[in-house]
């Protein structure tokens, strides 16, 4: 056992400060969304009705479950249950994979219908609709990148748990990675109603 002092509280505080910058990043996109919704309510409605509620709702459940698994992994590591920690982190990774597959199906269906930024169909259509789908691709795409990064971090932390570098006494990096993962879930909690439900 090494005797390196770790400032657990400082590490978590730093992570939270970073998460606030992420909150403001996505917050900006949500402001953009609401301003354009106020300007083009009809066309946003037409756009929103074309999104698949089943895909959106399934992905909501998948992400909530992945978050549960990540939160349980923190409990497991603090209780010294290494195998369970690894199983729970794998669960989160599995959910991340399902989420991305569903996102892929959803996007490819839209692109197959000629709906993507700069497509002939959107250029010929009403301006509000191309704004809607532009924001849709930007927001869900940025969120998707966060899912990929979060999954990579979960995988990396899993390797560290396996090697014994993260254990009951030293697990703040696992905690911080799960905080990032929960942020990904939080952002989706708002994307889902705004894009799939209220229009």
């Amino acid at each position: 056992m090494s005797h390196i002092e770790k400032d657990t509280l400082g590490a978590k505080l730093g992570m939270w400060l970073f998460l606030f910058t992420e909150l403001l990043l996505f917050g900006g996109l949500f402001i953009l969304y609401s301003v354009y919704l106020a300007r083009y309510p009809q066309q946003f409605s037409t756009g929103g009705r074309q999104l698949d509620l089943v895909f959106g709702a399934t992905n909501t459940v998948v992400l909530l479950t992945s978050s549960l698994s990540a939160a349980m992994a923190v409990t497991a590591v603090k209780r010294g249950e290494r195998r369970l920690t690894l199983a729970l982190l794998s669960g989160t990774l599995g959910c991340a994979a399902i989420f991305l597959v569903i996102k892929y199906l959803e996007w490819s269906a839209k692109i197959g219908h000629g709906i993507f930024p700069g497509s002939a169909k959107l250029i010929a259509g009403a301006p509000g609709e191309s704004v809607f789908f532009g924001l849709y691709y930007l927001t869900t795409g940025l969120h998707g990148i966060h899912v990929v990064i979060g999954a990579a971090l979960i995988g990396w932390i899993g390797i560290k748990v396996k090697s014994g570098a993260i254990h009951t006494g030293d697990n703040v990096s696992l905690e911080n990675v799960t905080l990032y993962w929960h942020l990904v879930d939080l952002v989706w909690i708002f994307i889902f109603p705004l894009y799939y439900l209220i229009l």
Partner: protein
Amino acid sequence: MTNDSAEHIVSYGKLTAVWVALLVLTTATVLVTRVDLGAGKVWAALAIACVKSGLVIAFFMHMKYEPRLFRAILFVALVTLATFIGFTFFDVLYR
């Protein structure tokens, strides 16, 4: 006070209960937006999303068990975002 021995561990049962609540709220938000409430459904959906976020932050992200400083900076971040939203709409709606 903040050393590792005083660290709070959230039980599996509690986490699962939060997850169940989140699923119930997700169902509620889908159902409430299927009804034609006009602008009401936007506010209902946003209110439910805020409650869900609160649950995720408080329990999954352990905010409930962190020192007060963490909640203070969360509050500052949310007030900043609310200010952005507020001033944007002052401009957009009364232009």
